[in-house]
């Protein structure tokens, strides 16, 4: 076993949720993923998913209006994910 792994927090699975237009584009409403240790903030999640290539890269390109909710609360780009169980990607909302 690589001993450097022991210095990282235990990797836990998070639920990723995609809503509305993003669900349609990604072809799925949710998945379970283990985030790499380098993904520490809400903004990191978006960049990490965008690196998967299309359709992720197009929908999540820098400048696209996508908001992140961490455990049901709207997050800023620098909101830490520590302990998050559910991370959702939201297109601009249009209710009301």
């Amino acid at each position, binding site marked *: 076993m690589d001993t450097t792994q022991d210095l990282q927090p235990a990797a836990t699975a998070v639920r990723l*949720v995609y*809503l*509305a*237009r993003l669900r*349609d584009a990604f072809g799925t409403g949710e998945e379970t993923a283990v985030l790499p240790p380098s993904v520490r903030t809400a903004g990191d999640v978006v960049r990490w998913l965008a690196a998967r290539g299309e359709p992720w890269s197009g929908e999540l390109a820098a400048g696209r*209006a996508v908001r992140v*909710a961490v455990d*049901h*609360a*709207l997050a800023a780009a620098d909101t830490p994910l520590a302990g998050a169980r559910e991370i*959702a990607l*939201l*297109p*601009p*909302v*249009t*209710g*009301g």
Partner: protein
Amino acid sequence: MAVVVTSEPLDAAAVLARAHAHDGAVGAVALFVGTMRDVNDGSAVAAMTLEHYPGMTEQALADIAAEATQRWPVLRVEIAHRVGPLAPTDVIVAVAVAAAHRGEAFAACEFVMDYLKTRAPFWKKERTPDGERWVDARASDDEAAARW
């Protein structure tokens, strides 16, 4: 203070009644009712589906109501939002704020709507003669929310 998210038809009068609550301290109730139009961005709209993010939605609305209660001396904030399939003229949202005086009732009600429009996880998908389309967010909604 109550939040309702439902796929059943909304009764705006009931939301109004809950806010007023037959309370002698209330001198003013501001009610906003958002209804489905049969036209948007130049297209006829025959039907609409309101998607939301169950679990977050109720919390987001409760947070907005609580924020309004902190900012203004209001007595009650009631929010009801429809989800699922809707037809033109259906009520989409009803927000009622009860207060002693009208200034704070109007301000808090408008604040709740502006915040709801930019922070509550609802998405409209319209059915038009050209097919279904997700409704685009309006820049004017961001500007309205930025006032507060």
